[in-house]
């Protein structure tokens, strides 16, 4: 029984990776880390299923946010897309070319197009190299010709990201965390890449500095037409910067939707609990908000639960569903499919909760809002859009 929402418009994709003019298409991406035992003869006794069948597409010029808790596979996804790790299975189409099986040396020419910004500005810069060497390295490695020489190019990059070009010969330890992150950004944009994977670029920074770096990333995106995959755990930052957001849990995408849709009408029970857990800097609203507490800890990715991976902690499974419905959650893996236009949800029993993110009383409580399932034509979801 197909439960997919059938859109009338031809341009609305049916599957998350079904977008032919996307810059990057990831289809059923899987990354298992083997667990081995034995000293001389090593046998594989299991695998950490870090990423387990993830599909999405990123259009040129847009920002896709990947959110989720630690251990959900968002960073691994970012690293596999940049081919810092080789995928176990699945396809990665970049600019129409499948790069999933390319070898290291074949990837080298593509590194000009795909770059990465790392989380920890203290460990991602070589402490023995000057800023000039660090930011100039992409030019030397790729043997890129520059108009006025590498030094002039690096200095103009430094100026562009808000660093003093006179600090060309300084070392990373002479800079603060925010400035170091700017150095990492300058290095990433040096070769004018098309796609940048930002792995938690602002989570190590103070609030006031975080806003500076977020604004810089947005400016660079519009100036150079960059495409971002923005990996983060902070839902407020992702709401600010991303155009579309994918919510991950235990190696799978739970919900993928345009930003405003996701934050105003989240459908997956996991998205609900994630959003309700974010504390809002407003004491009066904070007192009114309903907090959906998850019970227990994240299951082990070595041996994930059967059926829907979230069912062991799902508040809906625990409190609302009937035993036959529960049986379905335990046995059948929900497919990530469109339950409303452009809103992909991997849940057998999704429901719209409009009251979660805002903290305002939207007048919708758990029991009253309709379940968007097979027959209801995504009623609540479509009207809320």
């Amino acid at each position, binding site marked *: 029984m197909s439960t997919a929402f059938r859109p009338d418009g031809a341009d609305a994709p049916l599957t998350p990776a079904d977008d032919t003019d996307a810059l990057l298409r990831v289809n059923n991406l899987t990354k298992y880390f083997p667990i081995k035992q034995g000293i001389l003869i090593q046998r594989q006794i299991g695998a950490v299923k870090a990423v387990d069948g993830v599909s999405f597409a990123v259009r040129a010029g847009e920002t896709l946010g990947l959110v989720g*808790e*630690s251990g959900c596979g968002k960073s691994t996804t970012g690293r596999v897309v940049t081919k810092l790790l080789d995928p176990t299975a699945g396809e990665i189409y970049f600019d129409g070319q499948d790069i999933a099986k390319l070898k290291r040396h074949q990837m080298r020419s593509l590194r000009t197009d795909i770059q990465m910004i790392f989380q920890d500005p203290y460990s991602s810069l070589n402490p023995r190299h000057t800023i000039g060497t660090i930011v100039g390295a992409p030019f030397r490695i790729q043997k890129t010709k520059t108009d006025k020489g590498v030094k002039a190019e690096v200095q103009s990059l430094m100026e562009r990201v808000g660093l003093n070009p006179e600090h060309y010969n300084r070392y990373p330890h002479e800079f*603060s*965390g*925010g*400035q170091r992150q700017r150095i990492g950004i300058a290095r990433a944009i040096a070769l004018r890449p098309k796609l940048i994977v930002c792995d938690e670029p602002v989570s190590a920074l*103070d*609030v*006031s*500095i*975080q*806003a*500076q770096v*977020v*604004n810089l990333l*947005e400016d660079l995106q519009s100036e150079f037409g960059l495409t971002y995959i923005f990996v983060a*755990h902070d*839902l*407020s*930052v992702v*709401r*600010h910067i991303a155009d579309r957001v994918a919510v991950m849990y235990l190696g799978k995408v739970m919900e993928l939707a345009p*930003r*405003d849709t996701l*934050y105003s009408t989240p459908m997956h029970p996991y998205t609900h*609990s*994630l*959003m*309700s*857990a*974010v*504390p*809002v*800097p*407003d*004491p*009066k*609203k*904070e007192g009114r908000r309903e*907090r959906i*507490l*998850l019970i*227990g*800890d*994240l299951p082990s990715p070595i041996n994930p639960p059967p059926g829907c991976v979230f069912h062991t902690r799902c508040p809906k499974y625990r409190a609302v569903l009937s035993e036959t419905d529960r049986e379905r959650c335990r046995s059948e893996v929900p497919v990530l499919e469109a339950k409303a236009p452009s809103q992909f949800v991997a849940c057998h029993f999704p429901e719209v909760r409009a009251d979660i*993110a*805002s*903290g*305002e009383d939207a007048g919708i409580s758990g029991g009253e809002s309709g379940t968007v399932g097979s027959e209801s034509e995504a009623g609540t979801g479509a009207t809320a859009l």
Partner: protein
Amino acid sequence: MTAQPLARLDKPDVGDAFLSVRDLRVHFPTADGLVKGVDGLSFDVRRGEIMGIVGESGSGKSVTSQAILGLHKGSQARITGEIWLDGHELVGATEEQMRSLRGDQMAMIFQDPLSSMHPFYRVGDQIAEAYLVHNKVSKSVAKKRTIEMLDRVGIPNPDKRFSDYPHQFSGGMRQRAMIAMALVCDPKLLIADEPTTALDVTVQAQILDLMKDLQREFNSAIILITHDLGVVAETCDHVVVMYGGQCVETGSVNDLFYEPEMPYSWGLLTSMPRMDRTRQERLQPIPGQPPSLIRVPKGCVFNPRCGYTEHVPGRRCFTDRPDLLPTSGGSAGHAVRCHIDPDERRRLWTGDIQPTL
């Protein structure tokens, strides 16, 4: 434990405050110069109250908490001022006196539970040790008490989990075990230094809920150190905003979130993206960098990053250090360190800042 009675100085009038910090200064002499980690900080915490300390890295939040616990004793740090805990003065106390208070009267929850637990000892033994030091009981009683605490903080199968090592616990469970360790002797003062920063939001929500529950149950005073204004709004009663080693604004949470009067507090509120409001096209960051604590700016410590210095006549922001003065309009405990005229400050907040949030 036979602790000597603490020296009683001339006790100031601290009202009903359980902890009173008066003009605390913690200075570290270094080869590059004197680092003024905390420079003249005063605040009171009553029992049954959660006091939040907010600020960026290097603003002196953690140095303050370490000074209260006496963890600077034996280091190079020069500490002046007074810390009154339930009638005892702590700055002048000896290491031995401090040790009898730590764990018993006051306890601390650290940010990173993995590095603050010993990897070589079982979790249960580490918690029981804290109880044995302060109570003359047998090991089996201490074990029973530990299992009780592990159960209280929501660890499943506490009697089996007693014998686990820290690496067998997940991040959230370790933080629960840390809280159990801190609470095992029923401390009257609990200092939580970024207790949820290393945790995911769903686990953070669980831990904050637990802390609020335990606080109601034991009626303890809690100091919550954090950089997350959302956490402050959710848990705290009063707030101290620290910047460059000083308190720049203090008041109730309602004062801070609805009527802040210090440009730094405004900057904190405008620079953070928020989920509960309409999405802004651009964030409004505070320009520049936090100050060096060796070369603290002359005048107001925030002046290099402040956008409102021209509202003060005669460049006083650059020459005179403003005092922490009570505000005229706000509630009783609301005080601000700023030269801008109070009426002007309120006009700026309601006219220019609040609408942009």
